[in-house]
């Protein structure tokens, strides 16, 4: 193989996520708990099959003065997959998830299988991947494809095995636009990262002893069903409800006055703008933020919900939702060499202090490996550095998992748990509407 063919283009979002190393550890985390054992030999083959189709996963990121690039690296499946017996598989999986992958590593994904020892047949599959390679949306696809391919290989149905391997370019998001709309979408040179409110999560002061931690809270089936039912009754989405609950919890946790304004950024999947939802493209990032802002807390949960949906509607009704700033970023990366582009973008970009990323439902059916039963799991976003805060939300088997990953101390765990307590408190208020 020639040296040239070993290079892969570093796409705009790869470079943006590289820039985000200043705000978080660039890892996306997944944990799935099964009853039953996985066939490791089959799993290894499937992993290699998929990683070969997505070369960015076995590449190192190389920075140069002008333009960074990915370089395909040699690897073995053992660089990616580790298997261990464990007395406490879930604990060990959590420890594994706290790790990171250097951007110049030969592989950008790490998968661990922990088999519970003793009488239990519990198996925990943990995965962490460089956010520069894919976002939560494509991680959902990846794990679904992994389970599907595993099952197909076990049954010898080679024709049913799949793995998308198309373009990773950001500009697929314009594929549904044409004519004037396309022209307008490509001309949205507006910096929307600047927000008016600078309220931060009350994390403790950063310390050298801080470590990566994922704190989570599970909302049970009954409560989640009640949220869905109330949301349906009121004609709002579960995400709207979650945002309203989050706003009330943050007003209280951050000690804001009732008439203070507050902005919480909400992740949006840009694949809605792509033909076939990006099924033809490769693994990449297609996520943007919209800044949901309320000017006051609102006396009741109803008031807060009204404030939230008013803010959200202005975004939802915009056919260019999430597409602002992208031409500006592209321009900066096109005309400036890497270091200057990073400097300029970092100067102009405000990473959201408070954010929610609702990755939606994980399909238990699609995540099942033959011979084992899925019992639970979640996806969590990158481990943020203080003062940033991100709440990741996934739903699986009718249960909703809220999680936040932070490089912090035991005190920060307590703050996060206090936040989740408030979430549960306001969740009840919402259910009673």
């Amino acid at each position, binding site marked *: 193989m020639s040296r040239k063919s070993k290079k892969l283009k570093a796409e705009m979002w790869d470079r943006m996520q590289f820039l985000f190393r200043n705000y978080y550890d660039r890892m996306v985390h997944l944990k799935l708990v099964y009853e039953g054992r996985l066939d490791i030999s089959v799993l290894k083959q499937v992993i290699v099959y998929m990683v070969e189709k997505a070369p960015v996963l076995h590449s190192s990121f190389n920075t140069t003065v002008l333009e960074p690039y990915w370089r395909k690296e040699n690897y073995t499946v053992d660089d990616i997959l580790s298997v261990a017996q464990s007395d406490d598989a879930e604990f060990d999986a959590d420890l594994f998830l706290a790790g990171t992958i250097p951007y110049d590593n030969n592989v950008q994904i790490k998968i661990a299988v922990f088999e519970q020892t003793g009488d239990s047949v519990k198996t925990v599959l943990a995965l962490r991947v460089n956010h520069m390679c894919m976002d939560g949306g494509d991680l959902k696809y990846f794990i679904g494809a992994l389970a599907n391919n595993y099952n197909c290989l076990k049954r010898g149905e080679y024709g049913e095995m799949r793995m998308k391997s198309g373009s990773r370019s950001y500009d697929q998001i314009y594929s549904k636009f044409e004519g004037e709309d396309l022209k307008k979408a490509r001309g949205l040179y507006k910096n929307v990262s600047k927000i008016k409110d600078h309220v931060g999560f009350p994390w403790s002061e950063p310390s050298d002893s801080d470590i990566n931690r994922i704190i989570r809270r599970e909302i049970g089936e009954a409560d989640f069903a009640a949220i869905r039912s109330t*949301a349906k009754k*009121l*004609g*709002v989405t579960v995400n709207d409800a979650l945002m309203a609950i989050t706003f009330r919890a943050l007003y209280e946790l951050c000690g804001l006055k009732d008439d203070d304004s507050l902005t919480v950024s909400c992740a949006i999947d840009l694949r809605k703008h792509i033909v076939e939802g990006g099924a033809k493209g490769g693994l990449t990032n297609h996520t943007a933020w919209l800044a949901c802002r309320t000017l006051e807390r609102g006396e009741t949960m*109803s008031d807060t919900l009204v404030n939230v949906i*008013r803010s959200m509607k202005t975004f939802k009704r915009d056919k260019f939702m999430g597409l602002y700033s992208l031409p500006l970023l592209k321009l900066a990366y096109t005309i400036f060499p890497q270091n200057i582009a990073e400097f300029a973008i970092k100067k102009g970009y405000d990473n959201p202090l408070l954010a929610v990323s609702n990755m939606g439902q994980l399909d238990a059916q699609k995540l099942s490996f033959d011979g084992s039963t899925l019992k639970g799991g979640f996806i969590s976003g990158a481990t943020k550095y203080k003062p940033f805060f991100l709440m990741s939300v996934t739903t699986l088997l009718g249960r909703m998992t809220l999680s936040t990953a932070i490089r912090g101390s035991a005190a920060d765990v307590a703050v996060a748990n206090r936040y989740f307590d408030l979430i549960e408190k306001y969740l009840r208020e919402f259910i009673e509407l």
Partner: protein
Amino acid sequence: MAAEIEIVSILKPRYKDFLEGEFRQIAPTKAAMEYRKQLLQQLLDRTQELNIRGIVDPDLIFKTTIDELGDIVCLLNDFEEREQRSEDLKHKLSTGTAVAIAVIALIAIVYVIVGAATGIWHPTWLILLGGIFSSLILLMIFASLKLLKKRKVIPVRFMIAASEILVTVFIFLLLQLVFHISKSWLIFLAMVAMLFGSDTAMAFLAGSKGRWIELPIFIEVLCVMLYVILGIALAPAKIWHPGWLLCLGGVAVAVVEFICYTVGKSRAKDAAEEKSEGKKQDEAYWTQWDD
């Protein structure tokens, strides 16, 4: 996407009927249709909000939302007026553009005819350039008049400056290419003074706060440019010395003007204070008691 709630499903047809009926009072245009849809969305949003806040009676929600719209007749009349104004403006703008294009086309024809008849294509191309510049200046005058009506002075000041630059460039080309006058480039120095002069005049006309600051700057620039132009134009006559006194004179005039301005302002302030004191005194005469 959230499903449509029952109350919205109930009220949507009623809102549609209501809006369809009311919109018959105004002309059936595409803009009116868009506005009607916008009002429906507004009513539906409000319905959802009221429902979230606890009103479940559809009739009450209907009444509340329609009341919140205000006087629908006024609303629609206002909309029509806005549309009419927008249409008028578009018409005038398109007329202005058409006139400008016609002028350019006419001048292009004149240029071709003159060129073909005389066989001289250079510098007759100045006719074409003059036409384009004239059209641009006409457009800027037209836009300036519109902007002045809206009291938007800053873009007008820019347009005046742009017009002056175009005129200067044209005159320079004329002097250089047709009349072969050496040192015709000096007109660009005059242009600088002219730009300051016209902008100062505009500042005074518009009552701009900085007009008294701008005036001495203009005077000084005028003197300096005059000094340089005369110095170069009248060479070899040595007027550089004592011509520099012109610059100094400019500074002196500017200083005097600034002193007068400061003194005047101070006096005006004193007068205002005296007046205020007087008012206080009068008030005391009217209302003060000895107890």
